[in-house]
C-alpha cells in the first residue's frame, strides 16, 4: 500500500520510526523541537518523544556536532540536523577530523554511528553564503558516507538505512524539496547506501545526476524524447561510495555520458565520474564525456544571475545534442 506524502513528512517518518525502534537514537539541532523543524521536517516529534530525545540547541554547530560525535563514541546514535549544510562549515572539523577518523585512529575500538542531515545547495535568491553544495567535499573524505536524496521515497529509505549504519553518514536534502509530494509505501523499507537508481531507461545518452537538480534532467529528457532522443537517467543517490558499476554498464550501452551536478566544477563528483568512465569504458565512448555544473563563481542574488549560475534544461538539451553530434 502506498500513499502520497510530502518530502518533509517522509523525513519525519524515517526519524520517528527509527526512534521507536531504538532508544539510543535521538535528534538534535536548531529549531528541531519546539518549532517543529525550520522546514517542519521534525513535525510532531517533540510531542511523541519528548525533550530528552528531540533536542533544541543554541546556534552552536561546532559544539553540538562534537557532542553528537562524543555521544556516538559512547553508545548513542545521534541524528544531527543542520538548518542547512552551509552552516556545517563551522563544525567541519568535528565531521572530518573526528567523526570520520575515530574508528581508524582507535584501531577499531570506537565506532561513530551518527547521521548529519539537512538541506544542501541553492534555494532561491539567498545569495552566496546560503547556496552552496559541499557533497564532493564530504565525499572526498574516507570514513564518511554521503547520500543525496531526491524524492520522498528515497529520502525515507536512505535516512532509515543511515540511522542504522554503524559509520558516520551525511544525508543531504533541499529546502526546495520539502514540499515535494511523492508515493511512499505504508510498509517499512530501506534503501541501501552505494546503489544508484535508474530513473528512466534509454538507449542514446546516459545522464548521471543526483539531488534536486535531477528535476532539470528529467525535464530535459522529456523534451529530448519528443525529438526522438532516448536518455537513460541515473540518480546516483549515494556519492560516497559511488555505484560505478551501474554507470559503467549504462555507458557501455549508450556510449555517451553527461553528468549534471549542482556544484562548482573543479573537483566535483562529475569530475570523478568522468575519470572513471574514461579509464574503464574508454573504448565504448562515442563522444567526450560532458559535465554541466553550476558556474565557477559564488551564486549571486539577482534572478538573472541565479539563472545564469544553475544548470538549466537548455544546457542539458544542448549537451545531449552535442554528444549526439546533432
Amino acid at each position, binding site marked *: 500500500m502506498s500513499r502520497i506524502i510530502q518530502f518533509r513528512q517522509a523525513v519525519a517518518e524515517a526519524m520517528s520510526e527509527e526512534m521507536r525502534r531504538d532508544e*539510543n537514537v*535521538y535528534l538534535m539541532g536548531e529549531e528541531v523541537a519546539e518549532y517543529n523543524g525550520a522546514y517542519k521536517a521534525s513535525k510532531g516529534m517533540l510531542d511523541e518523544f519528548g525533550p*530528552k530525545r528531540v533536542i533544541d*540547541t*543554541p546556534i*552552536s554547530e*561546532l*559544539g*553540538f*556536532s*562534537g*557532542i*553528537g*560525535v*562524543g*555521544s*556516538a*563514541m*559512547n*553508545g*548513542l546514535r545521534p541524528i544531527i540536523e543542520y538548518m542547512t549544510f552551509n552552516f556545517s562549515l*563551522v563544525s567541519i*572539523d*568535528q565531521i572530518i*577530523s*573526528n567523526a570520520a577518523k*575515530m*574508528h*581508524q*585512529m*582507535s*584501531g*577499531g*575500538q*570506537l*565506532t561513530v554511528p551518527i547521521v548529519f542531515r539537512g538541506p544542501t545547495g541553492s534555494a532561491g535568491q539567498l545569495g552566496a553564503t546560503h547556496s552552496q553544495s559541499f557533497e564532493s567535499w564530504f565525499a572526498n573524505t*574516507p*570514513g564518511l*558516507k554521503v547520500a543525496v536524496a531526491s524524492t520522498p521515497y528515497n529520502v525515507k529509505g536512505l535516512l532509515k538505512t543511515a540511522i542504522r*549504519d*554503524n*559509520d558516520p553518514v551525511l544525508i543531504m536534502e533541499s529546502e526546495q524539496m520539502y514540499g515535494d509530494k511523492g508515493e511512499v509505501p505504508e510498509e517499512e523499507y530501506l534503501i541501501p547506501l*552505494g546503489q544508484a537508481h535508474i530513473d528512466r531507461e534509454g538507449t542514446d545518452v546516459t545522464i548521471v545526476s543526483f539531488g534536486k537538480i535531477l528535476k532539470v534532467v528529467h525535464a530535459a529528457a522529456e523534451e529530448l524524447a519528443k525529438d526522438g532522443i532516448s536518455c537513460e537517467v541515473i540518480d546516483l543517490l549515494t556519492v560516497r*561510495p559511488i555505484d560505478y558499476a551501474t554507470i559503467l554498464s549504462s555507458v557501455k550501452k549508450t556510449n555517451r555520458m553527461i553528468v549534471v551536478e549542482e556544484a562548482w566544477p573543479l573537483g566535483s563528483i562529475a569530475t570523478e565520474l568522468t575519470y572513471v568512465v574514461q*579509464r574503464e569504458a574508454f573504448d565504448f565512448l562515442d563522444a567526450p564525456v560532458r559535465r554541466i555544473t553550476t558556474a565557477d563563481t559564488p551564486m549571486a542574488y539577482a534572478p538573472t544571475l541565479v539563472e545564469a549560475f544553475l544548470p538549466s534544461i537548455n544546457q542539458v538539451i544542448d549537451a545531449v545534442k552535442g554528444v549526439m553530434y546533432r
Partner: protein
Amino acid sequence: MPKKKVTKAVYLKWYEDMLFWRKFEDKASALYIQQKIRGFLHLYNGQEAVLAGALHAMEKGDKMITAYRNHVQPIGLGEDPRRIMAELFGKETGTSNGKGGSMHMFSKEHHFYGGHGIVGGQIPLGAGLAFADKYKGDKHVTLCYMGDGAVRQGAFHETMNLAMLWSLPVVFVIENNGYAMGTSVKRTANHEDIYKLGLGYEMPCAPVEGMDPLTVYNAMQEAVDRARSGEGPTLLEIRTYRYKGHSMSDAQHYRTKEEVAKYQEQDPILIVKKEIEDKKYATQKQLAEIDERVKSLVKECVDFAENSEFPKPEDLYKNVYSQEDYPFIINN
C-alpha cells in the same frame, strides 16, 4: 561523597605510577632520538600530579579524554603500557594497531577516549561522552582535559555553554603548563586567570595548585562529586609545568633554564617521595625496589615493542569503516 582517604597505599601508588610515567616518557624521548619513534612526540614530564590526583577521584566507568599529550593517561587507567609503547613504535600490537601513533592513543576497555591531535577538538567530544552517560542514566563522570592554549578555541566556549545548559556530568580540566608551544598564557589573552572563563557561563570554577597530587585530588573529588550528583560541570584550571619542550623539536627559546629549574624544585615525584619518607611509609630499601620494578617494566615495554611486527600494507584498509566490505576506490 566524603573525600577518600589518602593512605600510605595511595602515596606508594602515586610514587610508583608517577615514577613509571616519567621513566616511560624519558625512554620514549631516547627512542625518538634513535628514530624508533617518529612523528610528533609530546611528553608529560612535570605534569604527572594532574593525572595521579585525578585518578584517585575517579570511579569505575568514569571516562577520560585529552589532547595529544596522552601516553600515560591510558596506562594510569589500566591499559597495558607495553601496548602504548608498541603504538609509539607504530607496531600492530599497539593499542590502535599502529594506526594512531603518539597523538592518538585509545583504550575503550579502560574508558580512555583519546588521544586527539586537533587543539580543542576533543572538548565537545568529552561533553558528548557525558551527554551519553546522562542520556542512558549511567552515573559516570567524564574528565575532559585540555591545554591552556585550547581554551582560546571556539569549541571550548560552545561546549562550556552547552554543558551548563544541559547540566552534563563532566569536569573540564585545563592543564595550564604556562605555554602553548612557544606562546605563554599572557600572550594569548588580556587576562591570565583562565579559570575565570567559567564565570561567564556561571560554571563552578577554580584554580588548583597542580604540582602536588593531593591538592589536585581534593579539587577533583569535589568536581567529580558535583557531576555525579547531577549538579553539572566544573571548570578546573590546574597550574602545572612541562619540563620538556612542547614536542621533541623545540629549542625552548621562549623560557629560561632558571624557570624550568624553579619548577623542578617542586617536582611532584619529589613531593610524594618526601611525604613517604617523612611519614615513614616505606624504607629506603622498599623505595629502591620500586625504582627497580619501574626500570624493568620500562624495559619490558621496549622489548615488547621492538619484537612486534609493523602492520601489513593491506591493513591500511582495515577499520576505516566498521562496514567490512566497504568498496574503496583502488586506482588501477
